[in-house]
């Protein structure tokens, strides 16, 4: 292998490396750009939505209220159980018996 051929191989490798790096960078930047674009679109639709925006807002607040309502089921069931326990009267078992 001559010195000239070694130089050619090194140059090719460098070119390939630069190309791969460029490709990776392009992909990464385009991904970031895409996300930024989506965010921008979402922002626009929120501010320009008009009736559609109101419907969305109402929907969100209704969902929050119904979610709170659903979340109460478990604790209300526990409260019913505790309320029933409150009515237990076994105080007669503390009537003194001297054996």
């Amino acid at each position, binding site marked *: 292998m001559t010195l000239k051929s070694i130089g050619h191989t090194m140059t090719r490798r460098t070119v390939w490396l630069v190309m791969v790096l460029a490709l990776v960078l392009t992909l990464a930047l385009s991904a970031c750009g895409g996300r930024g674009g989506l965010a921008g679109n979402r922002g626009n639709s929120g501010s320009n939505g008009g009736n559609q925006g109101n419907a969305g807002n109402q929907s969100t607040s*209704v969902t929050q209220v119904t979610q709170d*309502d659903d979340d109460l089921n478990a604790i209300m069931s526990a409260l019913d159980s505790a309320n029933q326990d409150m009515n*237990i009267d076994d105080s007669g078992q*503390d009537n003194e018996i001297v*054996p």
Partner: protein
Amino acid sequence: MKFSFPKGRRTVFFGATLALLLSAAIPAIALAAPQDTRCGTDISCVKKFGDDAIAKRQTSLDAATTKINGFVSKGALTSTQAGPLLDQITTNKNGLASLKTKLDGETDITAARTDVKNIYLQFRIYAVFLPRTRHVVALDIMTNVDGKLTAAEPKIEDAIAKAPADKKDQLNTLYADFKAQLKEAEAQIDGAQGQLPVLTPNTYNTDRATYDKAFAALHADTKAAHDALVKARNDLHQIAMILKGSKGTPVPSITATPSA
């Protein structure tokens, strides 16, 4: 006019009167006598009676522990709320265990009977401790329900503000009742908690009238708080159903629960 009995008749009459008096007096004497006929002079019988009574109370205390831990695992009680209650149960269990050790070691039947009596007097597990604990558990859960319902207020207000105009009156009526019920529940919870310091074995043993009055107030206030919270929750449920309906989901029939 003189009234005279023949001698034989007089004796019969006297005998009959004496028999009548005796028959009336004997049951009264028997009732007034100390109830120590169950075991008589058998100390092992007294010890067994006491041990059984202690075991029964330990089992009831274990059941209370299980119940409280169950409420914690369901998220109805916080560990902070459960902690002091579980500590009190442990204190009673340890106290009963010590009393059992003392009773089992007694060699004098009078001392053994005193130990048995102390199972009632010192602990009052069934008359005081468990009923009080059950009410405290209910009050703690109610405090948590009240917190959750109060936290929903800004969301309800926001949802009503964005609701269709034709639903707003109905929603506002329900929301007004919701807030009134929460206020009522909070007042009743405060009232109930105010009775707790009176409810001790000592008050039960020495001032029963005061104890009974405080316990009746605790029970009534706790029940009233429970009822108010159930109504508030019902209001919230109806609000949620109406709001859902305004989005196109069918609304079930509504029974308004306005406050008096």
